[in-house]
């Protein structure tokens, strides 16, 4: 049986989000505490990419959130033009996919065997994964060039 702690999930989340932003977007992130003032701005619209992880003996979700305005800036940089909403959703989904891939890779190194689902991308106000019984839920919050990003991972062992 896998023994994952909250500390393990936090380390995995931090490595995944900082790795993807650094390698693919040449960005550095600063971790901030949950309930940081940036997260309380209700005028900000976010793109959410939710990726399911399904495996033998465990399952979970990875939720990545990025403000639409920051995704727009990244799209201009990557595409050389303003992305339309579908392109922004595509960007958020692909970043969520890469981050989840790194999360899965780290979980694999401690014995996880399973698959990544397809990212489901939505938009709106900030979301939070609801903690479930017998699960470990890790919330991490980040600032990048003044924009608030988040990565939440929920991990639960299956009961048979």
């Amino acid at each position, binding site marked *: 049986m896998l023994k994952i702690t909250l500390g393990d999930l936090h380390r995995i989340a931090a490595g995944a989000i900082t*790795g*993807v932003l650094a*390698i*693919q977007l040449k960005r550095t992130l600063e971790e901030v505490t949950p309930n940081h003032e940036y997260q309380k701005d209700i005028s900000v619209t976010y793109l959410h990419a939710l990726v399911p992880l399904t495996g033998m003996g465990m399952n979970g979700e990875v939720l990545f959130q990025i403000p639409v305005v920051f995704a727009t800036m990244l*799209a201009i940089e*990557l*595409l*050389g033009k303003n992305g339309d909403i*579908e*392109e922004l959703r*595509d*960007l958020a*989904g*692909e970043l969520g*996919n*890469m981050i*989840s*891939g*790194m999360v*899965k*890779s780290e979980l*694999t190194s401690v014995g996880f065997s399973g*698959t*990544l689902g*397809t990212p489901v991308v939505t938009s709106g106000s900030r979301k939070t994964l609801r903690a479930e019984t017998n699960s470990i839920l890790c919330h991490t919050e980040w600032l990048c060039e003044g924009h608030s990003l988040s990565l939440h991972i929920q991990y639960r062992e299956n009961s048979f």
Partner: protein
Amino acid sequence: MIPKILTVDDSKMIRMMLTRLFSPYLCELYEAGNGEEALEVAGREKPNLIILDYNMPVMDGVTMLRNLREDEALRKTPVILLTADSSAGLISTVARLGVRDYMTKPFHEEQLLAKASRIIDLMRRTPDQTA
């Protein structure tokens, strides 16, 4: 001969990133959003290199590779797999299907260029050869 590169990914963003990455080089670029489209483009254009994602709707990268290897005209086409999935099972499957190289996302652009240039001649465009 100007090399032809086919990029296959359901993410338009990734396809556009790859187009931007290769556009300074003398090559013809083609795109497909899934394995089925990719087989159609490959059959028509006979690319010299395919950069292929794994997890795609309609037809995934492994199914596309299997079809490619069964096509007499396309079976030797070099393929670089570019995917967020780094599972040992996938690597072993695509290795058996003869992929030339494997990269995980997120990817360093210069590493992908280096891998591509080991397969095809990538020559920088001169000012009168702009894409």
